[in-house]
């Protein structure tokens, strides 16, 4: 297990380096500097700004400087929020995104696995078709369509929930964003669970369990659930990436001051360091979480450790 874990960690490092190098190159290949404004600056001032941000150095040196900063957790200064470093902005925005993302993930797993299992047990029946029909709808309809329609319906027309973001401790403000973000994941997880549950339920050891006189609930809970969860577990990587992407939209629509807002703001304002920093941060997060999923996979299914 230790060997497997170490190998996985070693395997993730080149991926991470590749991502950082790619993002860095893209940002620095951009035509026009971040300080090009309508107002022309004198060459001396431009030179001073370039020197202050080390933009006058050759690219490899800038990259090494950036990597050195990364190792110390320093993502450089923001070009637009002059009093903040990128790390500080991430520290401000990320907690909101994390709470929404984590809650959406938990909700998706709970409902997705539940619905998928029920559908598998009633394969072909009306309930199964309803679950599958809804999940196809959930997969097809994008977050940026679901979110405004839910706001229109539940907040604007029916006044059940707050439409925007309030700086009070009201937990209901999280409800709509979390549901919106969770819906497509519920749909995917339900489909995955159903397919793998149907497969597992047809195996010999399940027949044996039934033959021992166990009830359906016990068979599913004790015997079928763990092997059926493996495909769902390997979907967690893409799911996390999808939730982070969806979070950008959800934050935009609900006006949540999360990391997604900073990202879009940075993109529209050409705040290169901020955009680069957030890409690097998200990529690291996704790769780290993927690593965690891989290791968990090894814990649950010993067979993968020896491949």
């Amino acid at each position, binding site marked *: 297990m230790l060997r497997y874990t170490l190998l996985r960690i070693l395997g993730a490092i080149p*991926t991470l380096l590749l991502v950082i190098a790619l993002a860095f190159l893209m940002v620095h290949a951009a035509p026009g500097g971040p300080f090009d404004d309508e107002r022309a600056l004198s060459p001396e001032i431009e030179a001073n700004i370039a020197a202050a941000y080390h933009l006058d150095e050759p690219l490899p040196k800038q990259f090494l400087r950036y990597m050195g900063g990364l190792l110390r957790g320093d993502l450089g200064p923001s070009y637009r929020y002059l009093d903040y470093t990128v790390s500080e902005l991430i520290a401000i925005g990320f907690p909101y995104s994390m709470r929404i993302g984590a809650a959406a993930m938990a909700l998706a797993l709970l409902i997705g696995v539940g619905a998928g299992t029920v559908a598998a047990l009633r394969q072909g029946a009306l309930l199964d078709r309803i679950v599958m029909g809804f999940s196809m709808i959930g997969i097809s309809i994008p977050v940026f369509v679901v979110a405004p329609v839910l706001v229109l319906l539940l907040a604007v027309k029916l006044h059940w929930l707050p439409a925007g973001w309030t700086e009070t401790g009201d937990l209901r403000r999280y409800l709509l964003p979390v549901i919106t973000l969770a819906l497509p994941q519920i749909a995917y997880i339900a489909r995955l669970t159903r397919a793998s549950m149907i497969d597992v339920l047809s195996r010999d050891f399940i027949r044996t369990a039934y033959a021992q006189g166990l009830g359906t609930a016990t068979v599913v809970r004790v015997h079928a659930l763990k092997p059926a969860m493996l495909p769902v577990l390997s979907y967690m990587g893409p799911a996390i990436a999808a939730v982070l992407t969806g979070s950008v939209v959800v934050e935009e629509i609900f006006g949540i001051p999360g990391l997604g807002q900073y990202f879009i703001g940075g993109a529209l304002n050409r705040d290169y360091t901020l955009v680069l920093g957030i890409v690097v941060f998200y990529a690291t997060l996704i790769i780290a979480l993927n690593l965690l999923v891989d290791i968990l996979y090894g814990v649950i299914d010993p067979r993968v450790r020896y491949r």
Partner: protein
Amino acid sequence: MSGNRTIKVTGTVLLAIAVMALVGPWISPNDYVATDLDLILKPPSANGMHWFGTDGLGRDLFVRTMHGIRVTMLVAVVASLVSLVIGVAYGAIAGFVGGRVDAVMMRLVDTLYALPFIFFVILLMVAFERNFLLIFVAIGAINWLDMARIVRGQTLSLREREFVEAARLTGVSTARIVFRHIAPNLMGIVIVYVTLTIPQAILVESFLSFLGLGVQEPQTSLGALVDAGVNQMERAAFALLIPASLLAVILMCFNFLGDGLRDYFDARHSQ
């Protein structure tokens, strides 16, 4: 719904939408850029032929929506073709050559899977001017990974089949085997995955346009229309609901069509 009926129904709906998008602006007397400040956010009516109402600048939403569908579909089809070319070439080479080349090529695909691609596309949009061609290429460049994997798997199994062995024994060149004997057998699965790539490309395009990073005014796409609708939804719900539901229907039809085609080809294979 049985496989065949799904294909027919969703195919018909998509065709109808495509025809409407092509013919609609031609039937309507209105123009998609002409503003009319006397007609701001008017709900749908036959009066003045504003069947989908008007937007915040008094532009006719029917023509704009049809225009948006054209742009969205065009982006999706071109992006899918880009991903088709990259994915099939990559997958077929990896699968046919096999061995160490295959291992390295597929390892690269695994690595790329781990990347938050959408953020790179946004980065690309920021770094370079938002031009249309770039959107196509960027979206296509994201979506080839699935195609490469599927094609590789299929090629691996085809490579061992008797007819390929027979071709090799009779002295057919490798290139000719790949193009004449392997490629035609990949058609079914490729058609299925192109159908499933199109909705993904539509999603990315509308996502970017929704964030204001995609198509630029006065051009429009379904994503941009949804974005505009969100800003007006308290006064004019129709401006949100019409493009949003059209987008949803299109995406759903493509997904169901892909599923239906997969079942259809699976059934044919197992016979």
